[in-house]
């Protein structure tokens, strides 16, 4: 099977990025909400460290995924109203933007708070800015709001995919699902 997307289906690389990142997002979001309420202690710092490591991994994957995607063709959509095609396209662009903006806002918050940043105990990353209480508060707001927007967009995006699959019985979902499904 070719790695690239074809006229009828997303290629395996795009699918791997798509579902791999979904799994990581599904893990990091609840961890993010959960960790802020933990009492201060090493346990809390460890969960934060994990959150940040996974978040940085998602940022790296977003870079790789976008680089790969720019060289890809887009499989033709099954017949659907033009507004749906446009909405889907806009959602995809927005999801790409958020896949960068969310981890970057987390990194900014972390920097302004003066916290260390280490990727899985292996590499330390520099702060984007010096400690700054005002910026810290703003970046925290931003991080949280971007996640909220993300959850709404992903919800619509997933609902649309499921609607195409179960209601319209078209190939939208199958063109992205693992396996050989493509568009006829």
């Amino acid at each position: 099977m070719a790695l690239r997307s074809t006229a009828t289906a997303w290629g395996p690389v795009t699918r791997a990025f798509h579902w791999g990142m979904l799994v990581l997002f599904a893990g990091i979001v609840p961890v993010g909400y959960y960790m802020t309420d933990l009492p201060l202690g090493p346990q809390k710092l460890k969960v934060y460290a994990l959150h940040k490591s996974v978040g940085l991994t998602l940022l790296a994957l977003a870079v790789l995924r976008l680089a790969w995607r720019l060289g890809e063709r887009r499989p033709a959509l099954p017949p659907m109203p033009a507004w749906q095609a446009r909405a889907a396209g806009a959602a995809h662009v927005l999801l790409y933007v958020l896949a960068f903006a969310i981890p970057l806002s987390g990194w900014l918050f972390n920097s302004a708070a003066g916290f260390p940043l280490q990727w899985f105990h292996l590499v330390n990353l520099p702060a984007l800015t010096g400690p700054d209480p005002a910026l810290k508060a703003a970046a925290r707001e931003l991080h949280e709001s971007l996640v909220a927007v993300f959850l709404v967009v992903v919800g619509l995006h997933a609902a649309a995919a499921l609607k195409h699959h179960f209601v319209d019985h078209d190939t939208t979902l199958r063109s992205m699902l693992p396996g050989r499904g493509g568009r006829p």
Partner: protein
Amino acid sequence: MRTLFTAALLLAAGTAAAAPTYPVLATQSSLSFVATQQGEKFTGVIRDFDARVSYAPEDLAHSGLEATMRLKSIDTKSPDRDQAIGTADWFDVARYPTATFRTVAMRMTPTGPVADADLTIKGRTKRIAFPFAWKATAGGATLDARVALDRLDFGLGGGEWADESMVAHRVEVVVHLTLAAPVAAAPAKPAAH
């Protein structure tokens, strides 16, 4: 000011001998430590401290270093961390507001002077060797030192916090004192009562 006063008292008490006492220029001096959190070094500056320095290489018996550090003044450039550092797991500043350093003996080694000193942090005292570099300057002298400590020796971050992947055990203390010309060693008049 306080240093001058202490010096005057000591002179009055007749305990000071040939080793002169140097007033510490607070604004040009710093007391800090370098620790490692999640693989990243950070510096904690102890802004509020007093130090007393009497030193003469030819009279080590009467030389001595003393410092009192008020730990509420620790600044690590992260308000969250500063707050955490004051809690019972770390410095417990509510119960132990100060740390003290007091030499018990002074000796000369091939690499320079070494003070053997009692360092007390969080109510625990440990005898440490404190090698330092002394440089006479036009206006007085400078004293520089860099000494590694194990934070667990002082009960800083025990229990769950003992995990080195979060905060390393080794902490370096960095001292830079700028000293003005010594207080005149002339016999002081008796302290006023």
